[in-house]
């Protein structure tokens, strides 16, 4: 019983073949098997949001699925989003207003923010807070995080309007 299982998945665009124990969560697999430690493990029960990754381009908790379930899927972590420069503007706005203190929650916040902005809509502050309701930050009080996302959303819309004009 409980032998390892062969899986093949894309992580940040790279195909990874691995043998995993079925009980290994995707979060532990990313952190320990392939050393992508930007995905943080906090509560490990789907409450804090520090472990969010993109699974087939939608934010999910990497602690709430086993790596075997991601077989054949495309996973993108905070490292992948950073390297393909998909969140440069978000990161800049977070940095500019210090929308973090200890930074533990930040990868999850950025993955959530990516999800919020991916729809192309410009969310209001209530909408942003609602969408961040599954991300805990124990340092900032959230205001600056909401500011950063709101500002990025506005800038992206302005950028799109300028491109159209």
């Amino acid at each position, binding site marked *: 019983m*409980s032998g390892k299982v062969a899986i093949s998945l894309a992580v940040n665009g790279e195909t990874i073949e691995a043998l995993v124990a*079925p009980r290994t969560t995707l979060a532990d697999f990313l952190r320990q098997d392939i050393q992508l430690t930007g995905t943080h493990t906090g509560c490990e029960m*789907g409450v804090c*949001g520090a472990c969010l990754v993109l699974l087939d381009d*939608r934010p999910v908790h990497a602690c709430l*699925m086993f790596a*075997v379930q991601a077989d054949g899927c495309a996973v993108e972590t905070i490292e992948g989003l950073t390297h393909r420069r998909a969140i440069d503007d978000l990161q800049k706005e977070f940095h500019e207003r210090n929308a973090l203190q200890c930074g533990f929650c930040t990868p999850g916040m950025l993955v959530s923010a990516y999800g*919020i902005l991916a729809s192309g809509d410009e969310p209001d502050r209530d909408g942003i807070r609602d*969408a961040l309701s599954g991300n805990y930050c124990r340092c900032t009080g959230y205001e600056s995080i909401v500011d950063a996302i709101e500002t990025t959303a506005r800038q992206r819309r302005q950028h799109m309007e300028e491109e159209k004009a």
Partner: protein
Amino acid sequence: MKARAFDYMRPKCVQEALEAFVSADGDASYIAGGQSLVPALALRLQAPGLLIDIARLDELRGLSLAGGHLRIGATTRHCEILGSNLVREHAPLLAKAAPFVAHPAIRNKGTFGGSLALADPASEFPAMALALDAIIEIASVEGSRRVGAGDFFIDLYETALQPGEIVTAVYVPLATAKTRTAFDELARRRGDYAIVGAGIDAQMQGGFVERMRIAFLSVGSTPVRVRAVEAALTGRQLTPEAIRQAQDVLGTELDPVGDEHTPPEMRRHLARVLLGRLLGRLEASR
């Protein structure tokens, strides 16, 4: 904590999944979205020897119209319910409740059938299945059967599902031109479990209630229909007086549970407040 070691299999069809459960002598769990199961495994509240992954079975997927019902495949994710035009048009109550289900990342993975099978009394969709008088389709090695939502929720996390059975689909009666619905809940923070929540599915004609079903969540060990309130409103217009009377009936009919934050009296009070709000805006919204 981490889950106890287990074996994992991904069957190719529902029949294979059902047989795997039997072969494991019941020492198995089905997993689809896993948004409640994985924490339960991590906390070792459950420790099955085998996980049977049914998330990718085509038979369990999809939203479609079928014979006067909206068929919701069991592994339809909450985010799909939220984004579906079919749901908005034919089951507007579900569309209204969907934004209240957990957080966005959970909605991206959690499934409709899984929510019903778990039957958390604080969850939105089990209560809405009750309000909509939905039919739950269940598969076992013996074959398929259908159970009305009214007979499905038995007690805390206890449903009509027998060990080894799988919810395969849920059938929701289609909304009509007369349909009026409302949903809301009171929670300390958005995305948290509600202190109390409720949904109403009604048929109204010329301002009069022809038929009404009201289901509450977070008030007891199961989702709760309040039939005395429904009866008190049937045949009437939703005047301020009728709403007040309905709130009074609710105050005697509802026998809510208490917890460390919310004594039963407070929950009863909040349920009355919520009912008043929902009835006040019911007629205006399909």
